[in-house]
């Protein structure tokens, strides 16, 4: 049981009035510690739903979810919030930075919900370090609207890393970026994976993006078609 993430027979069924709409139909997969995985599939294949379940934003209708050897399928909203805060980092396609807050404040924000209370100065310093790490040392007091798309995504990455997560979930992280910026972002993911040992799951439909991953999981119609060779 050395896998960091282990899913077994995950079903997710949405109830739309009278009709039951199954989105995930028995997904089983395992992701080891330190992997860089791409989750591919056409829209409607259930990859976003799977990512939400992986990121503890949602819970499966049935099935088991083992995280680091612990069954978390039946965790309540509070425990899942705690996991999202400490174990997972999220990077979204649309960046999801809070407008009218500086890059620094955006990066500090997840620490507000971490239950270890560091002094204010220490928290700011940590956020500044994080921004420096993603190459935005001089732009910490800019608001998102004053930053380019690539810079915004870097702020989002800094934010996702602030609580030292072990897993980074990126949902189409380059979907809104031009190709050269995309490359920079993806290179950054690679560095994070290799140097910091963070497990990264990239959700994408772009084969170029998937090319950066060491392993590709393909989804179709709510099922894992091909989980690649276990690295």
């Amino acid at each position, binding site marked *: 049981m050395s896998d960091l993430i282990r899913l077994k027979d995950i079903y997710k069924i949405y109830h739309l009035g009278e009709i039951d709409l199954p989105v995930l139909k028995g997904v089983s997969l395992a992701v080891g510690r330190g992997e860089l995985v791409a989750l591919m599939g056409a829209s409607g294949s259930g990859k976003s739903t799977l990512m939400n379940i992986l990121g503890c934003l949602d819970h499966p209708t049935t099935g088991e979810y083992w995280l680091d050897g612990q069954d978390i399928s039946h965790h309540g*909203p509070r425990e899942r*919030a*705690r996991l999202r*805060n400490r174990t997972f980092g999220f990077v979204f396609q649309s960046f*999801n930075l*809070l407008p*009218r807050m500086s890059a620094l404040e955006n990066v500090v924000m*997840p620490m*507000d*919900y971490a239950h270890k209370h560091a002094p204010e100065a220490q928290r700011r310093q940590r956020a500044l370090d994080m921004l420096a790490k993603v190459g935005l040392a001089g732009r910490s007091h800019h608001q998102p609207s004053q930053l380019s798309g690539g810079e915004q995504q870097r702020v989002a990455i800094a934010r996702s890393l602030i609580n030292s997560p072990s897993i980074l979930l990126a949902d189409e992280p380059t979907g809104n970026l031009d190709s050269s910026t995309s490359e920079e972002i993806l290179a950054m993911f690679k560095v994070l994976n290799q140097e910091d040992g963070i497990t990264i799951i990239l959700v994408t439909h772009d084969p170029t993006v998937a090319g950066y991953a060491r392993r590709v999981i393909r989804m179709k119609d709510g099922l894992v078609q091909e989980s690649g060779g276990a690295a």
Partner: protein
Amino acid sequence: MKATVILRTATRALRRNVLRTLLTTLGIVIGVGAVITMMEIGNGATRAIQRTLTSIGANTLAIIPGAQNVGGINFGIGSQTTLTPKDAEAITRECAAVANVSPVVRARTQIVFGNRNWVPTYIYGTDPAFLEVRDWADMDAGTAFTEQDVRNLSKVCLVGRTIVRELFGGVSPIGKEVRIRNVAFKVIGVLGPKGANMMGMDQDDTLLAPWTTIKFRVVATSLSSGNQSALNSANTTEVNSLSNLYPNVAGSTNTITLYPTQSSNELADVPQPIRFANVDQIMANARSAEDIPTAIQEINSVLRESHHLKPGDLNDFTVRDMTEITKAMSSTTELITKLLMYVAMISLIVGGVGIMNIMLVSVTERTREIGLRMAVGAEPGDILRQFLAEAIALCLLGGVMGIAAGRGASIIVSRLLHWPTMPSVGAIVTAVVVSASVGVIFGFYPAWKGSRLDPIDALRYE
């Protein structure tokens, strides 16, 4: 999430749209301001009315001896000679609810100054505490007499304004002497104006002197002046001749004597009537309007004991108060104050609804923010606290501005309209508590709604 962080997040969110924040709090500002202004004006009015009531003696208790019944003839209330200055002392000593006590000896007779004379409505023999009892300590001129004057039977007196006008022609009477039944009293003070009492009697037509002087030098006994039927043998008028009745009887006038006149030696041998040290009534005032019932109870028990009344015996005295008038007047102001308060409270509720409205808009507007915060680890409780803190901060901000507005308004009212207002700490505390609870009550629903959002839906919200 730490409280300081919650507070910082809330203030930052409120600062983001200053105009909206100010407009939202306006309802609370007006509500709290109105509550404070109303309470201050109401308190001022109550205080003013209480002062008026005190000046006409609303807190005053009159202790009057009971009725004397001799051979089937009832002489009416006050005709018994049961009250003594000792009773006054006992009340002072033992009744906690009584502020001041003073004995009163009444007289009604002519007073003379130079070639003028006048019969004041009230000639009271009393002690210095009387001025406290009747809230009359503000003298127009001169000073009050002292306990020493009472002990020494000093022939000094205080006169009211009406007497100054009628007897002295408006000239300051200080240091002048008036004669009361041929006893010369030096005027040492002029009483402050008081006007008519509730019965329409002119209270400025009063002469005050030490009760001992009035008792022993002027009226000799209270009953002789108070009640014609009770004239007693101590009367000094001697009839030892029939010459007034039969002036033309043979022989020289004034030679017919009915009995031999007493020599001075013989007079000295005749035992004098005992000096009854009874007083006509005792005046007392309760510490406050609320203390009146307690004061009456205490006086009753003290006097029953000092008069050695057995259980079951009727009281040989009566305690009278002006409760009804006090009640009627203060209940009116209280009613008006409460009414105004309720009206002001309604505007607070309206302000609260306004806050709820804006908070609902704010939650909807910031759905994505809520989703993101949840995605990075905010628990539903964190979101609830955040929005609740915003609502409470809004209300407290409104409360503080409302306090300033209310105080300002009441200062303006007292300056421009000359209405009596009274700053009230209670009003400010109430305002803060009420605005905070308005924040909790009206902020809870929007905050709860925000906390119940699903993170996935919230993140996807456009």
